[in-house]
């Protein structure tokens, strides 16, 4: 129990501190990675992000809602191998409509206030990644799995 809590807190801290992550989507068999700004809920079961609807990542997600998001704290130093941690969140996305998004959008804008105008555009989709599991990598190759909500 104690170990689970420690894992939860480590992931929570990383997701709170980091502003950007690399989103992996599926473009009809072709993997596609994109850098995105995100914000996670306190329970870690949802991660929100925004994207213009004209982008490749959006059309990929419309065709296949499964995706993963890599978030890490590397500093581009040799010590990253031992000191940095990386989390991969895996799940399924859902585009939020007007009625669903107000609280989520507020959470997102608290972290990224400069994206206010961007998220207000009718051509910008606001998306919730419903996370099934987190994989945490640290100390070079140690990998732990965490399932939110279980």
């Amino acid at each position, binding site marked *: 129990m104690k170990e689970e809590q420690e894992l939860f807190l480590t992931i929570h801290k990383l997701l709170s501190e980091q502003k950007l992550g690399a989103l992996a989507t599926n473009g009809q068999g072709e993997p596609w990675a994109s850098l995105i700004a995100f914000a996670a809920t306190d329970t870690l079961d949802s991660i929100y992000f925004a994207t*213009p*609807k*004209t*982008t*490749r990542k959006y059309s990929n997600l419309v065709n296949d809602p499964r995706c993963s998001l890599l978030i890490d704290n590397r500093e581009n130093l040799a010590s990253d191998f031992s000191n940095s941690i990386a989390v991969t969140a895996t799940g399924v996305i859902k585009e939020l409509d007007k009625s669903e998004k107000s609280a989520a959008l507020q959470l997102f804008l608290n972290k990224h*206030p*400069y994206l206010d105008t*961007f998220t207000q*555009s*009718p*051509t*910008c989709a606001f998306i919730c990644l419903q996370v099934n599991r987190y994989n945490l990598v640290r100390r070079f190759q140690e990998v732990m799995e965490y399932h939110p909500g279980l």
Partner: protein
Amino acid sequence: MNLIPLSELNQSHRQLIGGKGYALGQLISLGYNVPPGFCVTTLVYDQFLDQTGLRDLITLELNRKNMGEMRWEEIWDTALRIRNLFLRMPFPANLKKTLKAHCDHYFQTASVVVRSSAGDEDAAGSSFAGLHESYVNVRGFDAIIKHIQLVWASLWSDRALLYRRELGLEVEHSAMAVVVQRLVQSDVSGIVFSRNPNDPEQTIIEAVYGLNQGLVDGSIEPDRWLLNRSTGNLVKHIPVDRARFMVCTDEGVTLAPLPPDKAKTAPLYAEQVNQLFQLAHNLEQQFGLPQDIEWTLSNNLLFILQSRPVTAKKTNSTEDKRGWYLSLTRSFGNLQQLHLVIVNEGLPAMASEAKRLDDYDLNPLSDHELAIEIDKCRVIYQYWHDVYWDEFIPFAHGIRLFGEFYNDTLNPFDPAEFILLLNSSDMISVKRNQQLAELAAQVKQNPELKAALESQDYFSPVCELFIEQLDAFFKEFSGLAWGAEICFSDRNKTIKHILQLASKALLRKEKENDPKIQQMVNHFLSHFQGEQLKFAQQLLELARVSYKIRDDDNIYLGRIESQLIKATELAKNRLAAKGDPDSQLRNANELIALLINPGQVPKTKRKKSKNKQQSGKLKARQIVGQPAVAGLSSGIARVVLNSDDLFEFKAGEILVCTAIDPNMTFVVPLAAAIVECRGGMLIHGAIIAREYGIPCVTGIPLATSRISTGDKVTVDGYLGIVTLDKKP
């Protein structure tokens, strides 16, 4: 350390109080009379930015595009957006509380001056004074807060952004201090240069009645006294026609007629001239450098408003057009005068010149006469081209002035909202497009007419009325030049264009008499009363005229240019008929020489046309510009580089071009969206797209090379993104 009384400023505060604040602190410590007040240090600016998240927003704004690639108009848009952000951000409560206590202590209900005090603006050798804003006669705590925000925003003004490299302007490190001082009720004000920048042997004093704003912004010519710098003896007094002076209104300042007794009398007595001479030389000794001093006299008491080292005159090289750009910032009074000149003289003269040239038949001219006509047209065109740059473009600043005033009043979410109030269905290009739309409507309603036109059977009885109206259209609108081509000179091409228009499911019409716009105007004007209401109405009217002229002057200039093109085309054809194989490639000088002296063929070096630069395997997938008109559209791109491309334009295509000229806007109703290399919310492309409600992205310098005719393109006018798909 957030707020420091002017009387307590010293060397230890140097980094926090800016150049002006520091100089005022020194003046007080030396015993000079300075209006009381306090300095809002750069720490407050930093806290405001950090607590509101504004620092990140400014960074985003400044990095939307490489500023080196921006046109002046785009830099103004950026500055306007940043200004809007400063005004829309709530002032943090903790800072507000401290500020309120200081304002109550120093000013109670008195009027104040809110002045910029940037890093090194007044330091020796720096010639950037005046790039930032100061506001005179600000009343009440809320107004003081708003004007502090406006002064902060002016750290990022278009003028400052233009000189960003020289100023070392950076979001992380640059900050602005603000000086808030009690307003002195000035009887006479002016400037002293302890050393005349134009004559090192002299001291120069300039003086006007009332506040010195009129002198500083150039709207009032001052009396001048030139004095021997060593002895103080008067070399010369240069009086002027004194007609107006700057006075305080309920809020702000205005020019008022000078009472006759003052108009007859110089603003300074001999003793006062001496007193100012002494002051200037004392300050020069104390600061160790020749000084440029702003002063004011109130009830015979002399106040110093500012003292800074005399800076070298700016020398702008011919390539550096920034000086010209700075001159575009005109005052309301100056613009009103320019308005009268343009509306009563410039524009009618330009229109009648255009008509005179249109009516002049070149065909009967002999070769010699044609050569003279080409030369004449060239001189006429150059003259009007210069008038356009020197008077008409600066007049467009009326739109900017209104834009800032509107945003200051309403704090709208969209800083470009004010443009909606300027729409005019009275513009020539709009009238032309309306007539084309009416012709297209006839074709759409009458299948027989459509069939006859498609088979070019123009003599069919069903075409009679249509052709009559088309001829009337030609008479009114032929001879509008675009680039080196003449539009609407070819009946077949024009009919083809009308058939395209008629093929659209719904004929797009300009938005006219929209009740929503009138509601917006009423809402805007409801914020004012009395003199302020009159000013707001005048400013709106001025901006509307600016906006309309911005289109019409281009049309007239296009007509004048088209006569030059017609004359040169005629000359080329005549020379070709006489066997000159190079006639189509000849420039005006060669044509004139050959027309006058047929035997003398000048040798010409022709540049080989370069192949379009290959961009290797680079392929743009998504390009970012400025969102000019909101909306989302997809379609096939047509890159328009010449008039043939224009007449090839099909309904539903995406128009991609360098810059939309008012003379080519007739294709706009056919376009599903517009992408333009030139940027700025006031450029013609943006204006006309807004009229028709077509999504538009501007300011993509490489749009015409990154996008090819036939590409499938999606234009997101909300976010300013153009996405290219693979070719269909």
